[in-house]
């Protein structure tokens, strides 16, 4: 019996009625009980299997501990020091920065172009939108495999095209720089549809009369884009940049499938996995990386919340 409290039809009598008050109090506590019954199991699951593991991670990060071993040594902050001072740790930051910047800029710029193309009432519009969006919800493993077939120097289509042009196919999997370029291309391909769809929603909320007015004043498509559309897309661009940073920093499936042991593609999230479950089994160091990643993501989100609260209310 969960019913929203309705304003009483008659004004409540001034005289305190103990019976009535008791009834109201028991109604309130029954509502609270219902709430706990309905929402409790969810909260219990989330606390037990997300918050508790996260907290234990902080403790693990202070240990020198092989995954699955019964004993571990407490080493304090040594794992954190290693991440910020060793050359391998430095490389992780470099790769993370390149991968995140390239994928965020790539999918946001290309996504905008695609959205501008699809923002027309032409036949096949819905199908084109669906097609562009589909890669975003495909399994990362499936996408990784699809592109392995394209990049493979021996049987891949890219190799055949290059050979037809008189070039030999580079080995994308052996050269670390090329491997990083490869996973960036594939990640942008997968994520672009999400950006395009969000831009399309933003473009459609631009008042048509603004664009018509610009057209009457003699603004061509390019001028309209830079003087009308882009300024009005400001909040969309900001929202996308934050969600794309968050998801790029968590990209894992494609990296693991296309470069299984990490070869110039060790972003922080991939390194967390490789250190713990790969050949090293250094669960303590891996946990320290996870804590640092969490702090970074937290800061990015906090910046977004502040900015959104301040800026987006102008509408």
């Amino acid at each position, binding site marked *: 019996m969960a019913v929203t409290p309705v304003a009483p039809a008659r004004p409540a009598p001034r005289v305190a009625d103990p019976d009535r008050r008791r009834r109201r109090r028991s109604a309130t506590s029954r509502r609270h009980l219902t709430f706990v019954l309905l929402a409790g*199991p969810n909260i219990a*699951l989330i606390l037990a299997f997300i918050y508790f593991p996260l907290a234990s991670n902080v403790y693990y990060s202070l240990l020198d501990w092989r995954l699955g071993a019964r004993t571990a040594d407490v080493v304090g902050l040594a794992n954190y020091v290693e991440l910020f001072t060793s050359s391998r740790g430095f490389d992780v930051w470099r790769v993370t920065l390149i991968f995140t910047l390239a994928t965020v800029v790539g999918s946001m710029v290309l996504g905008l172009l695609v959205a501008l193309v699809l923002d027309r009432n032409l036949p096949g519009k819905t199908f084109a939108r669906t097609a562009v969006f589909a890669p975003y919800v495909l*399994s990362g493993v499936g996408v990784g495999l699809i592109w392995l077939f394209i990049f493979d120097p021996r049987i891949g289509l890219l190799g055949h095209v290059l050979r037809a042009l008189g070039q030999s196919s580079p080995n994308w999997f052996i050269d670390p720089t090329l491997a990083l370029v490869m996973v960036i291309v594939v990640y942008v391909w997968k994520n672009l549809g999400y950006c395009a769809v969000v831009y399309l929603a933003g473009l459609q909320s631009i008042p048509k009369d603004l664009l018509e007015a610009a057209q009457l004043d003699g603004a061509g498509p390019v001028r309209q884009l830079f003087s009308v559309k882009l300024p009005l897309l400001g909040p969309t661009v900001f929202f996308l940049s934050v969600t794309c940073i968050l998801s790029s920093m968590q990209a894992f499936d494609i990296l693991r499938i296309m470069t299984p042991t990490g070869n110039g593609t060790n972003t922080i999230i991939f390194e967390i*996995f490789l250190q713990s479950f790969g050949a090293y089994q250094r669960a303590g160091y891996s946990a320290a990386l*996870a804590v640092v990643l969490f702090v970074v993501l937290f800061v990015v989100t906090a910046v977004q919340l502040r900015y959104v609260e301040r800026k987006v209310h102008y509408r």
Partner: protein
Amino acid sequence: MLTTKQKVWWALGTVAVLVYALFPVAAIFATSFKPSSELTSGTFLPSSPTLSNYESILAGDAQELFLSSLRNSIGISVISTVLASILATLAAYAIARLDFPGKKLVLMTSLAVSIFPVISIVTPLFNLWRTIGLYDTWPGLIIPYMSLTLPISIWTLTAFFRQIPWELEQAAQVDGATTYQAFRRAIVPLAAPGVFTTALIAFFIAWNDFVYGISLTSTSAARPVPAALAFFTGSSQFEEPTGAISAAAVVVTIPVVVLVLLFQRQIVSGLTQGAVKG
């Protein structure tokens, strides 16, 4: 109005976008029908199409690897989707309609989860599962999938339920319906689309998961398809079952493609909710 020349340019642009998006998928689809002798031929379409790759994963050599993982994937994804949808619906209903002192905190607790890196939960869970015996079992994946999908489901459903005109329920009761009838006839039809969209997204998350799948399983007892596919590639350095992999990749992506084609609108609105309003 567009001139004819402009129309041609936009049409060309659309075609380019379509090729960009569909070509890779089409390529692997075509590859999956190639016999092994044709894999290096370099033609896009197989000249003598064959079903042998599908036979090998569904009935032949690779079937042990693939069929059991397909069973695991379907079972685990469906169970966790159903359970998470039921629990999230109850919680979202409570948050949207009942007063509770800590309501905001409950909502924030679940929203905050969306920024946590999933991978940082894996090592602790691996440890916990080994201790309590859930490692390499169905519940060992169903539980993390639920805790992964619950927060986003609660969040989207709460937003959805808040928009439902709940007065309809009282109106129906005034018209003589019982409490149950009022709920069944007036509220369920309005709430169902939201629950459905949420369930679809929860299914995608479970079906596509890879991190938990490779870290929390070790045998075909619980290993889902994405993890099994990684195992395919890893174990086959010398003789690559390329054709079988392409067929398996098609099988694992088909359900998602079909769902996207059928429910494009719901999925897009569910995933991009709040994007424009900030």
